[in-house]
């Protein structure tokens, strides 16, 4: 009974995980590549969904709606980037400000409704949850193509001169500037790229589930971090190549949703999900710190013994 229902739920969880994985790649770009803690994400994910749903409802093709969502996300990233680099506001706070502002903006986009539906019966949506287990209109091929194309493009981009300069910006700003790299511009551009991806993920999600909700991005940043961390913990040793690292993030997001599904099937209250996610992410973020403390104590003791 448990297993059959889990099995039934699995394809949906995997598809959702892969779509959220695109968002998690955006989080990976800011947190790991650029070394900036960007909290715009919770807002820009919903922006992507809102823009996509409203445009499709207005008669635009779903493809163009995705493109517009991507651009809208880039604008959100631009705002955060300018608040940070031009106004000297710490990155975290800049992201929080944009995120807060986006809540109002998203409601405006959705014509003051917290939720806007997008029925697959009325609009030619690219992917839909409804067909996740049927052979016809199955969303998986397109989702997989999206994931692979995005990973491929990013892999190419971060190998170019511009991409290398962005990696240098993330790893050592002093060095980057000494080598003539405009670090502020790169940070802004990186935030735009990351939030563009996040919004694209939100747009795909809104088509997949047939609606956009002003709260759909709540906690997205934590889910993104969870995916990044799960991917790193599991594949750190094997996936050294940058493309594979991004794939690990996607797999991390998928695993997150599978675990979520299992927990749900076990009868856990859905209201407690965010609490659990936050706990898990907190523990994984703390592990490296604890490890280093234990190491320091050990070497300290050894030194004492030597003396």
């Amino acid at each position, binding site marked *: 009974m448990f297993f059959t229902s889990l099995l039934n739920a699995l394809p949906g969880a995997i598809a959702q995980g892969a779509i959220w994985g695109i968002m998690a790649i955006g989080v990976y770009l800011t947190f790991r590549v650029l070394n900036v803690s960007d909290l715009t994400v919770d807002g820009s994910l919903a922006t992507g969904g809102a823009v996509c749903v409203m445009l499709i409802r207005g008669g635009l093709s779903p493809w163009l709606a995705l493109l517009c969502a991507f651009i809208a996300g880039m604008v959100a990233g631009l705002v955060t980037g300018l608040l940070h680099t031009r106004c000297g506001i710490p990155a975290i706070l800049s992201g929080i400000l944009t995120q807060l502002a986006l809540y109002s903006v998203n409601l405006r986009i959705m014509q003051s409704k917290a939720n806007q539906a997008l029925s697959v019966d009325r609009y030619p949506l690219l992917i839909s949850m409804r067909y996740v287990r049927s052979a016809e209109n199955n969303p998986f091929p397109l989702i997989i193509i999206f994931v692979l194309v995005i990973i491929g493009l990013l892999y190419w981009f971060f190998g*170019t*001169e511009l991409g*290398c300069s962005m990696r240098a910006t993330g*790893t*050592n700003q002093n060095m980057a500037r*000494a*080598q*003539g790299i*405009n670090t502020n511009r790169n940070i802004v551009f990186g935030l735009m790229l990351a939030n563009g991806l996040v919004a694209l993920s939100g747009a795909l999600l809104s088509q997949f589930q047939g609606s956009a909700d002003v709260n759909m991005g709540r906690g997205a940043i934590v889910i993104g971090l969870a995916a990044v961390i799960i991917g790193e913990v599991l594949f750190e040793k094997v996936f050294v190549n940058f493309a594979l690292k991004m794939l690990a993030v996607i797999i991390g997001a998928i695993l997150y949703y599978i675990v979520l599904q299992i927990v749900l099937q076990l009868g856990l209250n859905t209201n407690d999900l965010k609490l659990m996610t936050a706990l898990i992410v907190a523990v994984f973020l703390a592990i490296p710190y604890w490890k280093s403390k234990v190491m320091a104590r050990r070497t300290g003791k050894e030194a004492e013994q030597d003396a």
Partner: protein
Amino acid sequence: MLKLRSISKTFNPGTVNANLALDRLSLELAEGDFVTVIGGNGAGKSTMLNAIAGTFMVDSGSILLDGKDITRLPEYKRAEHLGRVFQDPMMGTAPTMQIDENLALAARRGQHRGLKWGISKAEREEYHKLLKDLGLGLEDRMSAKVGLLSGGQRQALTLLMATLKKPKLLLLDEHTAALDPKTAAKVLEISQKVVEKNGLTTMMITHNMRDAIAFGNRLIMMDEGHIVLDISGEEKKNLTVADLLARFSKASGREETDDKLLLS
């Protein structure tokens, strides 16, 4: 070729921590000058180099490089003309990137960075040769992450990066201070070679008086944000550490020569 015209810099102005680190400092370098810079802790040596590099903007005065006023130019734009090696070996390289990638970044200093591939095959071969010349065995580890290198290896690499694209001015800020004596000597030797080979105009801060006398054609000493001594040519060649200490106490107007301060 470099002109500092009465530059001043106060850190934390208007607070109890206000600190006049550069006090109407003027200096002129000629093409090909190799200047060693000495002075006690807090004399303003690093601040002077950072002012030239544009790490911060000076409060007053102007900075001219090859006749061009760069006083208000942001750091990354000045970098086109400057090569820099820092005291902290962590500061000059990108630790999560490979050795060859770091060099490729440096090779594009001052150039537009677009969507061309970040490093070419021909470049790799060139880097292999240059690394081999360093004599540290780095040429066989070109795809290793720079974070894995020792401090001395990093400083040598940073030096190579600073001069890969010939700078108008090379700024060395105690770049051997964090290294053990043997490695420091090796990195100094490499520095000397690179400077000579390319005829680079160079400023080198050091706390080692002997090095300050042995290297370069000109020596300046700083104290409290000014230049208190400026020795060049024959006079510098004949200089001894004792001379230097005596002249410092005279120039700075202090009764007692605080050798510890100078030599620390």
